[in-house]
C-alpha cells in the first residue's frame, strides 16, 4: 500500500438547482482510493454514486449541477479548481471512465478503430498509420477476435459485450492510473458480465491501475473489490474493507440491504425487504436520512444527524446505533 492515496474526495456536495427545488444529490461524500486498489461504491438508484463519479470526471453540466462544497484531489492536485483546458490533459492519461451504456457512449458514425485512434491523435501521441495500429493492438488486448478487420466496423455491428470491450479499450488506451467503471456490466447478461469483470480485473492487475467500481450489485462487490463505500441519499453511510463491511455491517442500511437480497438467505426463508422507498432528494428527512425506513430508528435518529463512528480501525459507519447493529446483525 502506498503512502498517499491517489484520489481523495473530501466532503463533496453537489446540488441540482431546478426551477422550484434544489436536489441534494451528493451531501458530503468523503472517501479515498489507494493506488492499485479496487474500491467499490455501492448504492441503489438515486444514492448519488454516479453523480459522484461524474463529478470526479468533471462531466456534470452546470447549470443545473453545482458543486456546493468540498474538494476532489487527484495525486494531491485539486482537480475541481483546474481550468478545463488543463483538466483535458488529465482525462484519459490519468483518469478514465467506462460507462454503463456502451451504445450511447460510442459514436455511431465513426468506425471503432477510428474512435480509438482519435485518442492518440488528440493527445499528440501518435498519428496516421501508427495511431491506427495502436488502436488494433488495444482491441486485441481487450479480447476482440480478428481486431484488424473489426477496427473498421461500426458500433452497431458489435454485440453488447463486445461494445463494452471497445469502451474499455478506449479507457485504458493512454494508460491511466485510475479507472472509474460506472455499472460496467449492468446492461449485460450474466455470462458476458463474468467475461467483462474478468477482463477489467486482469487489465487492472497488469498495469497496477486503481479502479473505482460503481455498482448496485452486491455479488460484483464481493467478487472483485478490496474496499467498499455504501451510499444512501447522497452520503457514504458506511466504509471499509469489503469483508468487514458486508460480512458484518455496522450501519442499519447495509444490514437491511443484505437482508433483502435473495441469495444471501437460505431458500424458502422470507426476504426482509426495506419498507418504503428511497427519499426524495429535494426533501431529505431530518436527522438520519434512512430513519423512516430503519428498524433501529429512535428519536435521536429522527432529530440529529448521526456522527461518523469508527467501528474498528480503518472502518467507519454513520449511524447512531452502529454498535447495536454491529452486535445484533
Amino acid at each position, binding site marked *: 500500500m502506498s503512502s498517499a492515496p491517489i484520489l481523495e474526495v473530501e466532503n463533496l456536495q453537489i446540488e441540482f438547482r431546478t426551477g422550484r427545488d434544489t436536489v441534494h444529490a451528493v451531501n458530503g461524500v468523503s472517501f479515498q482510493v489507494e493506488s492499485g486498489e479496487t474500491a467499490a461504491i455501492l448504492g441503489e438508484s438515486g444514492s448519488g454514486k454516479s453523480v459522484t463519479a461524474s463529478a470526479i470526471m468533471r462531466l456534470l453540466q452546470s447549470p443545473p449541477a453545482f458543486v456546493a462544497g468540498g474538494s476532489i484531489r487527484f495525486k494531491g492536485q485539486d482537480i475541481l479548481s483546474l481550468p478545463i483546458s488543463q483538466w483535458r490533459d488529465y482525462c484519459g492519461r490519468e483518469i478514465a471512465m467506462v460507462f454503463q451504456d456502451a451504445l450511447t457512449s460510442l459514436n455511431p458514425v465513426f468506425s471503432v478503430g477510428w474512435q480509438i485512434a482519435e485518442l492518440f491523435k488528440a493527445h499528440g501521441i501518435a498519428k496516421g498509420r501508427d495511431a491506427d495500429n495502436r488502436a488494433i493492438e488495444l482491441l486485441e488486448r481487450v479480447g476482440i477476435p480478428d481486431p484488424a478487420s473489426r477496427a473498421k466496423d461500426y458500433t452497431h455491428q458489435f454485440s453488447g459485450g463486445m461494445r463494452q470491450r471497445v469502451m474499455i479499450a478506449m479507457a485504458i488506451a493512454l494508460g491511466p492510473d485510475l479507472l472509474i467503471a460506472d455499472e460496467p456490466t449492468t446492461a449485460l447478461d450474466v455470462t458476458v458480465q463474468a467475461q467483462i469483470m474478468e477482463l477489467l480485473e486482469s487489465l487492472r492487475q497488469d498495469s497496477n491501475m486503481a479502479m473505482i467500481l460503481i455498482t448496485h450489485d452486491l455479488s460484483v462487490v464481493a467478487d472483485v473489490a478490496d474496499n467498499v463505500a455504501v451510499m444512501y441519499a447522497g452520503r457514504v453511510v458506511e466504509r471499509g474493507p469489503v469483508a468487514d463491511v458486508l460480512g458484518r455491517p455496522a450501519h442499519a442500511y447495509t444490514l437491511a440491504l443484505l437482508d433483502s437480497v435473495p*441469495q444471501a438467505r437460505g431458500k424458502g426463508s422470507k426476504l426482509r425487504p426495506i419498507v418504503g422507498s428511497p427519499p426524495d432528494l429535494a426533501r431529505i428527512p431530518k436527522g438520519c436520512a434512512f430513519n423512516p425506513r430503519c428498524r433501529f430508528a429512535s428519536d435521536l435518529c429522527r432529530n440529529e444527524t448521526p456522527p461518523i463512528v469508527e467501528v474498528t480501525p480503518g472502518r467507519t459507519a454513520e449511524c447512531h446505533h452502529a454498535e447495536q447493529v454491529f452486535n445484533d446483525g
Partner: protein
Amino acid sequence: MMVENSSISPADDQPILEVRELAKHFEIGSGLSFKRKTGVVKAVDGVSFSLRPGETLGLVGESGCGKSTVARTLLRLEETTSGSALFHGEDIFKATPQELKSIRRRLQVIFQDPYASLNPRMTVEEIISEPWVIHPDALPASERPDKVRALLENVGLRREHAERYPHEFSGGQRQRIGIARAIALDPEVLICDEPVSALDVSVQAQVINLLMEIQERLGIAYVFIAHDLSVVRHMSHRVAVMYLGRIVEIGTEEQVYNHPRHPYTKALLSAEAPLDFSKDRKKHQRIILEGEVPSPSNPPSGCRFRSRCWKAQEVCAGEAPPLEYVNNHAVACYFPEDSPAG
C-alpha cells in the same frame, strides 16, 4: 372434466397448463423491401413444460433465449408457429376469440415495465377495475369500488390511493398496482414476465414477498420469467433453463441449482459470484464461456450450445439432443454431468 370434493384429489397433480413443442419463428425482411423474406429467427423452437396448480415454474435464461416470447405466445399476444398449450385441456392457440376471453380470465399477466404497463390517463381505480369492465359478470358494478380498495390493501397500498394517477407512484408501487389488476379476476395462473427486474434491490424484495404471499393465500400458479438466477431460485418450485429458444434443463429448484446436469446450466450458475464476504474467501472460480450466444437466425446444428461447449463432440452437431427425464429432472445433452444419487 370435473372432480368433485376431496381436497387432495389426484386431480391436484394434473397440470393446469401443459405446453407441448411450442415454436415461434419470426420472418425477417431484407430491410429495404417488406416483401422479401431473407431469413427466419427461431425465437422459440420446441419448448415443452407443464405447470401444476399452485406451483411456481421459473423460466430462466439470458437475453434472446426466448423466455419472453414464450410468455407472449401463451397470452396470444403473438401467434405461434406450431405447438400447443393446453389450459385445463383446452388449447390456447386454437381458441376462438370467445373461448380466449374465458381463458384469459383465468390466465393473467404482470409485465416488466411498471411505467409502460399502466395507462397514465386512468386513475388507479379505473386501472384495477378494467378487468371487470371486460368481464362484467365477474363482479357486479356496485361492489367494484369496495373490491378495488380491498385489493389495494392486499398488495400493500392504501385505500385512498384509488383516486390517484400512476405518475404519483414509485416503480415498486406501480408494480403493486399491476399485481392488484392481475389478481382482480381471481386467476388460476399468473404469467410474470421479469416482474422485479426494473426495481432496486430493497424494493425488489418487497414485490417478491408480496408475490409469494399472494400465492400462499390464493393458490395461484406462476410462470415466473427472469434473468436473475437468485430471484428465480427464491421464487420457484421448479426451474427450466432456456438457451437459444430451447429448454436445456428442467427440474426442481434443488436439482437444477445444486446438481446442474447441462453444461450451460453449470456455466450460467458459475457466472454469478456467491455472496461470500468472509476474510478468507477464495477467488470465485467461474466457467468462462467462449464467445457469445449465436444469432437465433442461424443457430448451430444439433445442440445449440455446442459452439460454446467444452464437452462438444461430433455427435452434438447431428441430431439435437432430446430432453430426457431421470427422477423428474430432464436434461437435453449427450454428455450431461453425472446424475446425483437419488
